[in-house]
């Protein structure tokens, strides 16, 4: 798991460091800081909102899975300590079953945590890659047309 994360991040690092010229550096920096931020700054609101939403949902899920995982680990450790110190066979069986149950919970939550972490990295990588190779905005995000006795503000969306 750890090795995969390091490989993915290192690959991104290498690719990113060789091809920053394609996009506005400032927007790429914002996109590195948080997925979608750079897109919003560049006027690509739809894509930016999509990336921001995806990252927020993924990070929220990741945080919840992480909290639940830590809780399952604590419960497992407690059940294990009770099992190892049991002085009655009934208690030993009870805590052995609880320990196995919490182990399974921790394993499942660890899997969810890994998937969500991978998704968060994927969304982040997609955001950065999009800023580098996705093409810049074709025009300014806001335009002002002055007409007789008034003006029109128009906003350009790009998906």
């Amino acid at each position, binding site marked *: 798991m750890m090795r995969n994360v390091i490989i993915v991040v290192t690959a991104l690092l290498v690719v990113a460091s060789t091809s920053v010229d394609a996009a506005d550096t400032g927007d790429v920096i914002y996109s590195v800081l948080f997925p979608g931020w750079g897109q919003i700054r560049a006027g690509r609101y739809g894509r930016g909102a999509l990336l921001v939403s995806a990252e927020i949902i993924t990070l929220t899920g990741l945080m919840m899975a*992480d909290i639940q995982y830590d809780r399952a680990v604590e419960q497992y450790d407690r059940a294990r300590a009770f099992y190892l110190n049991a002085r009655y066979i009934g208690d030993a069986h009870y805590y052995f079953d609880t320990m196995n149950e919490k182990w399974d919970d921790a394993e499942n939550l660890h899997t969810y945590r890994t998937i969500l972490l991978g998704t968060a990295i994927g969304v982040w990588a997609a955001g950065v890659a999009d800023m580098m190779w996705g093409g810049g905005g074709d025009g300014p995000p806001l335009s002002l047309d002055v007409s007789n006795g008034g003006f029109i503000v128009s906003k350009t969306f790009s998906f």
Partner: protein
Amino acid sequence: MIRAMICVVAIALVCFVSCGKDHEGLPTGFDYDPPPTPSDFQATAGVEQAHLSWSYPAESLPTLLEFRVYYYYSIYDMVELVGTTTETEFTDTQLIGNVEYCYRVSAVDTSDFEGWRTAVQCVTVLSGFR
């Protein structure tokens, strides 16, 4: 600049992964070998007392530390220790007549590990008043 920021994000992610808690290794299996459960457990009513008796395998006697005698409270599904003995019988005295008492017995080995308790035996104690 961008390279540095990507590095910071990468380090943060790696820290997040590596700083999480880890569960210790799961024991391979159930390691306890409890002493046998006493068999033929019987409770007999006496006047303000209850007499309990049971049998126990002779081959397990060398590793026996004691027998534990418990009251059993069915409404709470709980036990309370009455006393201990090294014999295969026990007399519980100073009880209240016409009241039902329920008992369970278990064996404890020399490593102070207690085996399964017997099934519940209930007895209604005789009253001393005539």
